[in-house]
């Protein structure tokens, strides 16, 4: 029934690839949201704006300071992460003990400020960011051409996601983190500096968003609106995966990117809405999300 004749194998794999790329961004962003949510119990509405800041950071590092893509990959997340930690210390920390909805409202306000400032100075149009020379070109896999940069984005973000999961679930630091999430009071009684952990966790989640921004810069143009465009989908991804599940947010992110890509092949009209339809179905069947624990 689906226009069976028009789909070539190249098209199918091409969209699958785009789906995996978008899925990498969804996974990195929803992972950051999940990490922040676990520790601070707030939804970071500024996540999209910070993702955009990551991309702009890469752009400035290249054009103002001559630092190339590989430097940006390290420096941009550090800078934006430090900015996030500062926001947490100076603003978010004041909301502790209040309804978590206030955290959502505050980060939404911050997102507006950041996005408005960038739009003031850079307009709505996009700035180009070249693919690093080491990763330009493509290789022929027989059934399709695989651009090197795209392969790198998928591989690199999957590794970062896995490393984050490993660090949180399998290391001593992660155990501290989980302890502080589970019961901050007792964790403090055992001598953990919980407020500092909260600040660093927020900074880390923000750094993941900035990293996604750097990875996205050569693929999508660097635009002030790029964060606002992606945040609703990322929220849907988090709702589908279930909050608080690290692995769940990674798997859901990649999987939904692929589903979106496949929808573009088979029923392009629905490609923008398919994630939300899936969310509605998941909410009907499993209100806590696919990987979430039922409260």
């Amino acid at each position, binding site marked *: 029934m689906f226009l069976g004749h028009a789909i070539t194998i190249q098209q199918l794999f091409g969209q699958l690839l785009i789906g995996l790329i978008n899925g990498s961004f969804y996974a990195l962003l929803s992972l950051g949201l999940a990490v922040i949510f676990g520790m601070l119990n707030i939804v970071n509405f500024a996540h999209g704006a910070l993702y955009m800041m990551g991309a702009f950071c890469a752009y400035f590092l290249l054009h103002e300071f001559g630092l190339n893509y590989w430097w940006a990959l390290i420096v941009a997340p550090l800078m934006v992460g430090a900015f996030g930690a500062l926001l947490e210390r100076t603003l978010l920390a004041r909301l502790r003990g209040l309804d978590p909805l206030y955290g959502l409202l505050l980060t939404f306000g911050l997102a507006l400020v*950041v996005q*408005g400032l960038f739009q003031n100075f850079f307009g709505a149009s996009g700035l180009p960011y070249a693919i690093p020379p080491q990763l330009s070109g493509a290789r022929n896999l027989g059934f399709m051409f695989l651009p090197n940069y795209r392969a790198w984005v998928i591989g690199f973000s999957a590794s970062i996601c896995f490393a984050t999961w490993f660090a949180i679930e399998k290391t001593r630091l992660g155990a501290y983190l989980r302890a502080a999430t589970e019961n901050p009071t007792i964790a403090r009684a055992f001598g953990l500096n919980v407020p500092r952990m909260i600040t660093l966790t927020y900074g880390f989640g923000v750094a993941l968003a900035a990293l996604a921004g750097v990875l996205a810069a050569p693929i999508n143009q660097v635009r002030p609106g790029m964060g606002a465009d992606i945040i609703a*989908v990322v*929220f849907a991804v988090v709702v589908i995966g279930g909050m608080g599940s690290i692995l769940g947010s990674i798997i859901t992110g990649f999987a939904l990117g692929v589903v979106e890509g496949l929808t573009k092949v088979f029923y392009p009209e629905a490609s923008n809405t398919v994630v939300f339809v899936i969310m509605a179905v998941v909410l009907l069947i499993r*209100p806590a999300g696919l990987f979430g624990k039922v409260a």
Partner: protein
Amino acid sequence: MSVPSTVAPVAAPSRETRQFAVAFVVLLAAVAAAPFVAYPFFVMEALCFALFACAFNLLIGYVGLLSFGHAMFLGSASYVCAHAAKVWGLDPALAILAGVACSTVLGVVVGALSIRSQGIYFAMITVAFAQMVYFLCVEAPFTHGEDGIQGVPQGRAFGLLDLSQPALLYVFVAAIFLFGFLTVYRAVNSPFGEILKAIRENEPRAISLGYRVQRYKLAAFALSAALAGLAGATKAIVVQNASLTDVAFPMSGEVVLMTLLGGMGTLYGPVVGAIVVVSMQNYLAQYGQWVTVIQGAVFVACVLAFRRGIVGEIANALKWTSL
């Protein structure tokens, strides 16, 4: 609290009722005087947004549900009303009703799916559904995509009132606003409203008392969606167009700002907040994106230092409880 007497043939108005009455007279006077002070079309638009904010406040203020996607109700009703008035040639009153019907149905569907979640989950789910409605509006042929529906005829309401006359249009819009405002007042100050507040304060206890809280939440959500739709549909008649702005995400954020700034959970707060925000946009329009920056800063300031909002602070200072 005194025990209410069982026989009260002529109940003396309580202090709350008197306070509300005083404030309502002020509101009536303001609505009557406004078109002589400010540009009438601006006032009419502000009244539509005020009604929109009142509808939103019904959820956040009295049920404790933060909807971050209320633009879907405003925008969809606005499109349906504009389409009904322009293409089907319906009477403007009927076109508005069609818009309200659309947003109510949407409210029931979205509400049924989202009220099972609470707090931030609820907020995120409403964001996502609103984005879905936005994409549907971008792609549906009858909305005309980026162009929107232009040149909506104002027509004759009930076949009589010629709404292309600004004075009549103003009376029509003011009547709709007051109707919506009093609907919220009535809903909040009714047994239904008491149960909503009980759910906000302590949902498990409301459940243990035997209330089917999901039904109450759904009813509140649908009522809020209907009133938001009423605001959107009326706005389509006033400004004679329906566009993607009304259904896009920034609009959902703006109504949150209006309510937060005016005072969540106060009856008059959303009205005051809407007027402040709309005026701010109007007078700062020349500064472009600085409006967004200022709105964000106001958000941050409200959350950090000013959580009661304008009307909440005034009510607190006067020790009035029912503003």
